């Protein structure tokens, strides 16, 4: 499934993601990592911390709805893979980000922005294996 190259929209959307990361650090002193936010929602020992994470997550899910009001349509979710792949991928991502200590937002953006060597290494690792995985699935096994 080919998709359009959208340099300007992607640059602008990326800038908003960066802005959100800066605001969370300047106001609340935290790294904006989706893994960390979701992981923290699965612990219930600190109600003040939980409510903050729940508010961030609610805001995230409201993003496409705000877009609906603005643009008159929900964003496209194109899924060129089966539901089995979605579930398998979800499990593998969950285990990986848990051990790796973060994902694209936490390591790839926030970590690199504060010059963390760990985050640079993590980002190189997950980008490389994602590229290799898609190559194997699409070009060697010839799925999708």
């Amino acid at each position, binding site marked *: 499934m080919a998709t359009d190259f*959208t340099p300007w929209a992607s640059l602008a959307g990326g800038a908003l993601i960066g802005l959100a990361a800066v605001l969370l650090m300047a*106001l609340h002193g935290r790294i904006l990592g989706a893994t960390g936010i979701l992981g923290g929602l699965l612990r219930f020992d600190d109600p003040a911390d939980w409510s903050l994470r729940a508010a961030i997550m609610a805001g995230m899910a409201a*993003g*496409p709805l705000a877009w609906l009001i603005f643009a008159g349509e929900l964003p496209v979710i194109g899924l060129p893979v089966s539901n089995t792949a979605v579930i398998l991928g*979800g499990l593998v991502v969950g*285990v990986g980000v848990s*051990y790796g200590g973060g994902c694209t937002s936490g390591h790839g953006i926030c970590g690199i922005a504060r010059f963390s060597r760990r985050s640079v290494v993590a980002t190189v*690792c997950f980008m*490389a294996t994602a590229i290799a995985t898609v190559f194997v699935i699409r070009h060697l096994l010839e799925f999708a």
Partner: protein
Amino acid sequence: MRLISAFVIGLVFGLGITISGMINPAKVLNFFDIAGTWDPSLAFVMAGALGIALPGYRLAFRRQAPALAPAFQLPDTRVIDRRLVLGSATFGIGWGIAGFCPGGALPALGTGNPSVFLFVAALIGGLLLARGLQARFPARKTA
């Protein structure tokens, strides 16, 4: 104020993921498909995000503490170990299989697409599985 600002920050992030196209797994997977239907958009998302976050963090860290919390909470680990490398490599494999990463999937929940809920449920399963494994087999202390 604390929760309202957190909601607005989440909203800005969710809009960013939406506008950038990273809410769409087809687009993300095409970034990885260099030998096929390559779509370099994700690199522009990273460039846009880092273009704001790099100078923005420098400004934020000029203050002693964040505006609405007593202190900055930053990871203090600096070691590059097997755990970091293998965990991140594993994440990349899952990302390549499904096309969603956590930061793309959480905003995508707002579209009500059932596959996104499947992914997030499996993601939570994976997080809890890893948590259970880590409790049972604690990391060996090297050094």
